[in-house]
């Protein structure tokens, strides 16, 4: 299996993209269409679209036009997250051409709820994205709720077990404090995670250089990294990152 480098696209107000810092929208970086084309041309391994507009508590109307744009522009795998509340929301997105959906809030509210998603669509199409914070005084990690901007009190390790046993096919661990910092990824967590998690694990938050990514991907447990700011603010592309990781002896896709 090859390790993946996955650019993330943060949608804010329609088809505009932004970067985030500590899970707050920060700087605008152009339109969706332009960025999709760029990442497809740069041969990203996969794309992750995070729709902030739909991630509030407002009832969800699925952005059909947006999914059509994605389908027309991309011949690489695409995951979508933002505002998916039910198995039928997820099925709609899959039918409109995305390859995987990620959920967060439905999982935080009810950890068993994704079983119905998995029954309908299969594990391979359902990922759980877990924003988390480290509590230094307890030396423990907790899932963080982006709606209330507070820790949920649910230990991250327990959430991981729950998500896997409910049938999630992939987990994205997103360090809230490192988000947008470009100061390196959370290697401590990667060292602490049990190595027997049976599904692929992705990590987001903190990637700022090729080196940050190759160090994180050298951990056996990690299948891929999700990168936002670094691809918008530095000269790096998925190709340069893959070339660097290959030179470090990591299994990367050759294009």
């Amino acid at each position, binding site marked *: *299996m090859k390790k*993946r480098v996955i650019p993330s696209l943060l949608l804010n107000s329609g088809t505009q993209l932004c970067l985030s810092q500590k899970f707050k929208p920060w700087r605008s970086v152009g339109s969706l269409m332009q960025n999709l084309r760029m990442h497809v041309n740069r041969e990203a391994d*996969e794309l992750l679209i995070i729709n902030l507009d739909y991630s509030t508590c407002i009832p969800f109307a699925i952005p059909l036009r947006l999914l059509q744009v994605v389908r027309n522009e991309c011949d*690489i*795998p695409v995951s979508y997250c933002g505002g998916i509340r039910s198995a039928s929301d997820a099925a709609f997105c899959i039918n409109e051409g995305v390859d995987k959906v990620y959920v967060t809030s439905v999982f935080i509210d009810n950890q068993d709820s994704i079983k119905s998603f998995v029954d309908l669509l*299969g594990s391979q199409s359902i990922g759980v994205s877990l924003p988390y914070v480290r509590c230094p005084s307890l030396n423990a990690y907790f899932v963080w709720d982006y709606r209330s901007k507070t820790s949920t009190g649910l230990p991250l390790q327990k959430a991981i077990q729950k998500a896997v046993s409910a049938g999630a096919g*992939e987990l994205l661990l997103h360090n809230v404090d490192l988000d947008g910092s470009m100061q390196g990824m959370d290697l401590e967590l990667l060292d602490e995670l049990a190595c027997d998690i049976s599904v692929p694990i992705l990590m987001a938050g903190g990637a700022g250089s090729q080196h940050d990514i190759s160090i994180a991907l050298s951990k056996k447990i990690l*299948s891929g990294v999700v990168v936002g700011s670094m691809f918008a603010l530095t000269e790096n592309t998925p190709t340069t990152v893959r070339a660097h990781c290959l030179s470090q002896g990591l299994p990367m896709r050759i*294009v």
Partner: protein
Amino acid sequence: MGICLGMQILFDFSDESPAKKGLGFIKGSCKQIPKNSFFPVPHMGWNSLVFPNSSQLFLGSNSYDMNYSYSELDYYFVHSYYASPENSSIISAFFEHPSGLLCASIIDQNIIAFQFHPEKSGKAGYKLLDKAFEYLEHL
């Protein structure tokens, strides 16, 4: 031509939905990929293929052993079950699993099927689809 679930549905049945019948165009069934600490399931992401050297879809480079070769490029997989045809000679490509080679593609007369996604695999995928169409045209 079948891709992903479109491949699995060509078989007689699948362990994923035990009570349901498949189309039965290809003899065999679909089984869950064995879990292994070196192989996360779902099998998700980019992986190389292993072609039998006699495969009509052969796009190989480094040799795997005497009769098989690794693909030059990688292809995108996303699945938890794999098809297992009764007649293993119709397998046109495999993927590597710690328990051995598992079926990734078949060619049986006018049927071609892929477990992975050539349409999502960039240039490598288009190359393979060209090869598949070339085969179908010369039937």
